[in-house]
């Protein structure tokens, strides 16, 4: 397809993005970054892990996004006594029929809010993460496909680490984005106070169907990505694995392992989705940079040396972006 036609198509198809953002803005104040990332996940079929201290409207944001779309929504509060069967479902014995029947769990929904995912034990996390990857669940001897679209939005709290089960690196890699939510600024916080003090809580209206989301995903995949951008993405990911090849000797001792090929795929898809949100039919290096932190921060392993010096994966990514030549 000609790039002009593609641009026009994307201009047309991405009109709903502004509508969703407007609806979300009605409910959530000052978290535009978070809503943008939720849309990236929604459009590029990638699960999202939200991390932030309590009270930053993580759960509300996911709730609001789900209510903007005419789709199923389940909220699962992860607790230490949660069992995999509570999540995916189980076989129940029906005394009348004298047979076992399947009772599907809350995972059979379009949007799953896995609240405080790190509070559940490893077996429950594994069950969820397996479902995220395979998009299907097996109960007894029957396998069930999960509905489309299927998006997991998990939250975790960086404080109160006692009694939590940290997600292993292999499982955290299944999340396309790890979004870190920070506090709103003073002006936004003033608006939040007024909104809550008034006692009137606006509600979002349904403006999108699941079919429209699936169609948008197809369009996102069509966004043009030049080979120069592909090389730029590869350079960034390779710099996390072999920093010395990019004259980044300084950060080499800080990285224990770099991004996987899944990181390159996620970076490419997220860049396309970001370009779509910006209503462009092609990806530019700015798009890659915009999503780079969210795609890579949970995929870079830091050494003890880095931790001792309070160096975060964001610092490492910043160094890489400053060193890798932009096409």
């Amino acid at each position, binding site marked *: 397809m000609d*790039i002009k036609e593609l*641009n026009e198509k994307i201009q047309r198809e991405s009109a709903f993005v502004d509508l969703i953002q407007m609806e979300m803005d009605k409910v959530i104040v000052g978290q535009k970054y978070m809503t943008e990332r939720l849309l990236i996940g929604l459009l590029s079929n990638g699960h999202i892990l939200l991390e932030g201290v309590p009270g930053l409207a993580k759960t509300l944001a996911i709730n609001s996004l789900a209510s903007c779309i005419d789709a199923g929504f389940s909220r699962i509060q992860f607790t230490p006594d949660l069992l995999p069967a509570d999540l995916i479902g189980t076989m129940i014995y029906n005394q009348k029929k004298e047979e076992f029947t399947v009772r599907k769990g809350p995972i059979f929904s379009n949007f799953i809010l896995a609240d405080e995912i790190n509070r559940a034990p490893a077996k429950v996390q594994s069950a969820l993460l397996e479902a995220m990857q395979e998009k299907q669940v097996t109960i007894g001897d029957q396998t069930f496909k999960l509905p489309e679209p299927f998006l997991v939005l998990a939250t975790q709290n960086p404080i109160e680490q006692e009694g939590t089960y940290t997600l292993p690196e292999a499982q955290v890699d299944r999340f396309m984005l790890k979004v870190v939510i920070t506090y709103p600024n003073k002006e936004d916080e003033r608006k939040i106070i007024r909104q809550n003090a008034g006692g009137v809580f606006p509600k979002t209206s349904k403006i999108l169907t699941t079919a429209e989301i699936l169609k948008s995903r197809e369009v996102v995949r069509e966004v*043009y990505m*030049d080979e*120069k*951008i592909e090389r730029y993405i590869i350079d960034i990911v390779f710099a996390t694995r072999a920093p010395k090849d990019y004259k980044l000797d300084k950060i080499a001792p800080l990285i224990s392992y770099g991004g996987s090929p899944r990181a390159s795929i996620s970076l490419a898809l997220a860049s396309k989705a970001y370009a779509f949100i910006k209503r*462009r*039919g*092609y*990806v*530019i*290096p*700015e798009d890659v*940079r915009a999503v780079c932190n969210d795609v890579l921060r949970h995929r870079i392993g830091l050494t003890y040396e880095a931790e001792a010096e309070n160096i975060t994966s964001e610092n490492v990514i910043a160094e890489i*972006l*400053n*060193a*890798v*030549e*932009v*096409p």
Partner: protein
Amino acid sequence: MSMEVRRWKLEGGSYVKLCVFVPLREIAIIVFLFFFSLAAFSQGASISAELDTNVIKLGGQTKLRLRIEHTKDVTIAFPQFKDSIASHIEIVEEHKLDTLSEEVTTFYKFEKSYTITSFDSGYWVIPPIRVYLNNDTSKYIETEPVMLDVKGVALDPQKEVNDIKEPLSMGITLKEILIIAGIIFLVVGLISAIALYWLFFRKKKLKITQLFQPKPLSAHEKALGLLDQLRKKKLWETNQVKLYHSELTDIVRNYIDERFGVSSPEQVSDETLAAMKDKVDENTFTKLKQLLQLADMVKFAKAEPLSNENELSMNNAVDFVNATKPVEVKEEKK
């Protein structure tokens, strides 16, 4: 005069017991040697062993002499000692074979001697030393055992124990001073010679390289030269528009890096533009923005600009470099 019983162990396990009066110890030794030192002469050869002195102080030395006489038709093989003759008796030096007399027709007479010592006080026996004849292990002659009395150091337990004396300083002699001074003089002279040679050589080399080293180009000279080369390549005219814009922006970005210290090659266009906004005037900024944005469209969005747009980008790049190059201030002659 007290009498004491002494016992000596012989090679082979047998013991010799003697009752001696202590003041007559030396006499007893002579008597002992008289009975046991028998010169042997059989099979055309004889050997005898004797010490220069049978009494030494602890760590003192004496010479053990082995005298051999043999007829012309007999060949002899001396025993090979490593570092000791027997336990408690060590060899300090093995001397060369000494010919005492040579009668060509009848006998050869030799002496083989060893300087020996001992660091253990007591009476020690030098066992019979065996010499083989005609390289036949069944035919041999051997000496009689010889006694060695090693005297210990007499200690007076009543006296105070003194520390070991420090080595005495001998002082430096004039000869030593002259040797040290000579070495210092040689080393300093050598270092000075090398340093002078190196300095001279380096200076000469620098002069040569300076002659052939071109004057480094300034950032704008380099950029303008590269832009001129790019223009001559006629890339967009030969349908290599993407390469043309890539090279064009690379030249401009590297120029910005060198001229303003803004790491433009590692920045996206928006970042470069944001960094340059306050550094150049509005007209120059607009020109930079045009060429970067058009290049992004060509590189990432398959844009196909018109010929005049391609030319405009080149002209804008040249104008940008000329507008931002450092101004040379010339002093007016009075």
